[in-house]
């Protein structure tokens, strides 16, 4: 209200003079010409390795006012035995349990507010942003969580119940239904996509939890990253005190699988749509996917650009077509979904029921065009400038820097990657793009999953594909 009153007063004074006419008559100012970007210098990294094999990575970086701390344990769903899916995530949930941890969290006040614990196929990550002065105490707390969790029997039932609730919620969500079906079609049997049933979760006992922890939570599989603003000497002391005496164990060595075999999933002569019924849904979730090679493969650099050009920014072809031109979907996008040994390029959208068929046809048309015609040099150049620019912004915060460092570590990509990224972006040509699209986006590897109201969608889908 205050702003409005003041704004009116200003206008009473100046609008009278200007006659309060809209801006059309004012002279237009020509578009400025901009110069060259400043060079991007990745921040310096300090690395330590303790005798037990654990690594410490420090990135002093004052652009972020807090310290970002991420403790990575290389233990994930891929380490589970096939009969015990869900145990990796359950162990991770246990890390925040127990009287001692609760007391530490409580004593440290703010520190407990935002520790996130996430488990994927290869890693469990404890991540938190803290006020700089609290970084050493936070490191001690994370060490206590990872090294000495209290596996209390009373907590086990509660955590399993929570996990079951999580599964129930997931299964009401169209995007999860679409991606889990897609994964099972593209990468059958892949460890990353084993979703436990409720019965499997309920059958996990205390021994399974403690065994998994004892086997995989080991210094050789642990890395501590600290980025942002912090007192470096204090953090190094705290990290050494917290982790250097962690006894080395004979944990199974960590390794990544090879890229998935890129196999055909259909005959390729006519698209196949896998339809999951969600009665009464007002939109359909559509996911179109192709298996591709993993991050560390040289082709990935070009696939990254294809992804940008097709659906990872507002000017991308699929967004310009499906969203801006037709208004079929608000959230159409593409991305490279990265899982070691199971990477895919995917297009996903929530689409209004009555235009699902035409929207899928437009998506397929854009993919076919990319395989047929190289992009115009000017179009490609614009996306390359975008990628060069966002490299800077994505690495402009402590959290962003750690995201980069962590996947580079995981895939063993050399540390020169960031520093040479921008010059490498501009070496990709329109012909490279077409060739790579042709190599990876073959019709016989295309998997289409639709989640929506079957009765409404079936006639539209059958007009363009075989529906399963």
């Amino acid at each position, binding site marked *: 209200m205050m702003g409005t009153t003041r704004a009116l007063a200003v206008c009473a004074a100046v609008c009278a003079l200007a006659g309060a006419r809209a*801006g059309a008559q004012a002279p237009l*100012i020509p578009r400025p010409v901009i110069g060259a970007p400043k060079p991007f210098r990745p921040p310096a990294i300090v690395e330590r390795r303790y005798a037990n094999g654990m690594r410490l990575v420090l990135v002093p970086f004052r652009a972020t006012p807090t310290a970002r701390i991420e403790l990575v344990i290389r233990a994930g769903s891929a380490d589970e035995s096939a009969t015990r899916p869900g145990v990796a995530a359950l162990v991770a949930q246990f890390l925040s349990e127990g009287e001692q941890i609760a007391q530490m969290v409580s004593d440290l006040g703010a520190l407990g507010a935002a520790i996130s614990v996430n488990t994927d196929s290869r890693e469990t990550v404890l991540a938190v*942003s803290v006020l700089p002065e609290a970084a050493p105490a936070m490191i001690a707390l994370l060490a206590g969580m990872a090294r000495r969790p209290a596996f209390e029997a009373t907590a086990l039932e509660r955590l399993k119940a929570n996990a079951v609730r999580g599964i129930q919620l997931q299964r009401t969500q169209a995007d999860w239904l679409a991606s889990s079906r897609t994964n099972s079609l593209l990468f059958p049997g892949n460890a990353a996509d084993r979703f436990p049933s409720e019965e499997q979760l309920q059958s996990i006992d205390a021994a399974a939890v403690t065994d998994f922890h004892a086997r995989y939570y080991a210094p050789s599989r642990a890395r501590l990253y600290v980025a942002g*603003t912090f007192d470096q000497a204090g953090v190094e002391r705290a990290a050494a005190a917290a982790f250097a005496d962690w006894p080395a164990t004979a944990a199974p060595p960590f390794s990544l699988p090879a890229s998935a075999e890129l196999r055909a999933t259909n005959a390729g002569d006519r698209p196949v749509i896998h339809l999951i019924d969600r009665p009464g849904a007002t939109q359909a979730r559509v996911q179109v996917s192709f298996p591709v090679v993993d991050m560390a493969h040289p082709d990935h650099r070009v696939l990254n650009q294809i992804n940008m050009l097709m659906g990872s920014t507002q000017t991308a072809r699929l967004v310009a077509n499906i969203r801006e031109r037709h208004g079929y979907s608000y*959230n159409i996008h593409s991305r490279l979904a990265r899982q070691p040994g199971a990477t895919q390029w995917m297009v996903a959208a929530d689409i209004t029921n009555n235009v699902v068929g035409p929207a899928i046809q437009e998506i397929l048309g854009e993919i076919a065009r990319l395989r047929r015609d190289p992009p115009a040099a000017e179009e490609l150049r614009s996306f390359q400038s*975008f990628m060069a*620019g*966002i490299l800077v912004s994505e690495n402009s915060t402590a959290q962003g820097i750690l995201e980069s460092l962590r996947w580079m570590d995981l895939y063993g990509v050399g540390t020169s990657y960031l520093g040479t990224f921008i010059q490498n972006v501009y070496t990709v040509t329109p012909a490279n793009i077409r060739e790579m699209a042709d190599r990876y986006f073959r019709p016989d590897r295309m998997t289409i999953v639709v989640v929506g109201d079957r009765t409404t969608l079936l006639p539209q889908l059958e007009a363009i594909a075989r529906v399963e």
Partner: protein
Amino acid sequence: MIMRSLFALVLATAAPCLGQTTPVTRLAVSVQFHTLSNGLRVVLSPDTSVPLARVGVYYAAGPRRETPGRGGFAHLFEHLMFEGSPQLGPGEFFTLVTGAGGRFGARTLYDFTKYNVTIPSHALELVLWAEADRMRGLRIDQQRLDAVRATVKNEVRQQAFNRPYGRFVWIDVAEVAQTRWENAHSIGGETPDGSMADLDSATVADAENFYRDYYSPANAVLVVQGDINPSRVLEQIQRLFGTIPPRPVAPMLPIEEPRQVAEKRATRVDPNAPRPAIAISYHLPPRSDPAFWTIAIIDQILIEGRDAWMHRALVEERNLTEAIYGGISTRHGSMYTVNGPNFWSAFAFYDKGRSPDSILAVMDDQIARLQAGPVDSATLARAITKARADLYAELSANRNEGIVDMLGQLTLFGDNPARINRIEDEFRSVTPERILSTARDYLRPTNRTVLLLDTPEPK
């Protein structure tokens, strides 16, 4: 180059648990504030730690400015702002920003609509030029309005209706608890039955009128932050924005809510929800009232973190739910993003078959503890630290765009961007006595709405 960063370490009395000599962080954001002759307010904040510049343009044009029959228009208009201006055609803003290596975003909140760009700093002038061009004039035709409308309706469907808990708390509490249409209707413009008739009936003339009435320099704030030379940027702004002729701003209708005198209760059925949920929402004091900041501390004591009272009582001691959620302006923005009538809420999901009153009773017990007597100093100190940590998280959000938003909001809401460096003091000034009186004044049942969310009947 002198490295300047957005905050400084200052030696101060540390929290007792961290030892006597720990340096404590304090914000020290560099802020320059100018008002141009056409009324545009300009905030400049240099920080050369990375070669990026951030631009935020904030128009005091949110859903509270809408008129009945045109619910959701401010948000629809947010999308129309990318459809054309005197020198930019539909979508050209996107190309211009991304082609220069930048990213952009826009968002409609209750009291304003914001447009953000982050770009390598060498391209800043180009972004300022584009933002000035669309503050200078609007170009929109029927065909583009129709395409944008279809996209926006998809957005509303996706967020409100095609996922579980899509409208829970942030939309349906306002519908029940607010008495004025301006405050009660959905930002998306949809009604609980799924109708989007207001969006369907919006016209090109509506867009032209909304732009004329609310998208004028005097109703806007421009924030430029990052790797900038303030005097050079101010010169550019004078040339690009200062030459936009002033336009009058339409007066705002009153939006104050009357004092609530009886508890409200409502039940909503969510066809997508796997489990029921309960929310309690209390009307808040205005931001200018110290009680507003006291409630932010109360929120920390009751809800945020593992040491929070409701978390301990509901989750750890009684296992009635897996988590307790809530806060000021929960599920849409934060305590810093809203100026008009607003809520503090607490909510939880629970298993079918359980009674919501069993959860409500435990929530009420915790509130009663606050109302019985002053909290101890350790509890207060922890809550203040958590509130500061949340503030820093807010400033770092969206790759540090949070700091730009904070400067924009403080200017829109009170013409005082420099206040960013004193927010921590608001938290530090809260006392046990203030918590006691605020809990008694505001966390009374007659000031609240109890909202139950039910799952659909099995078919």
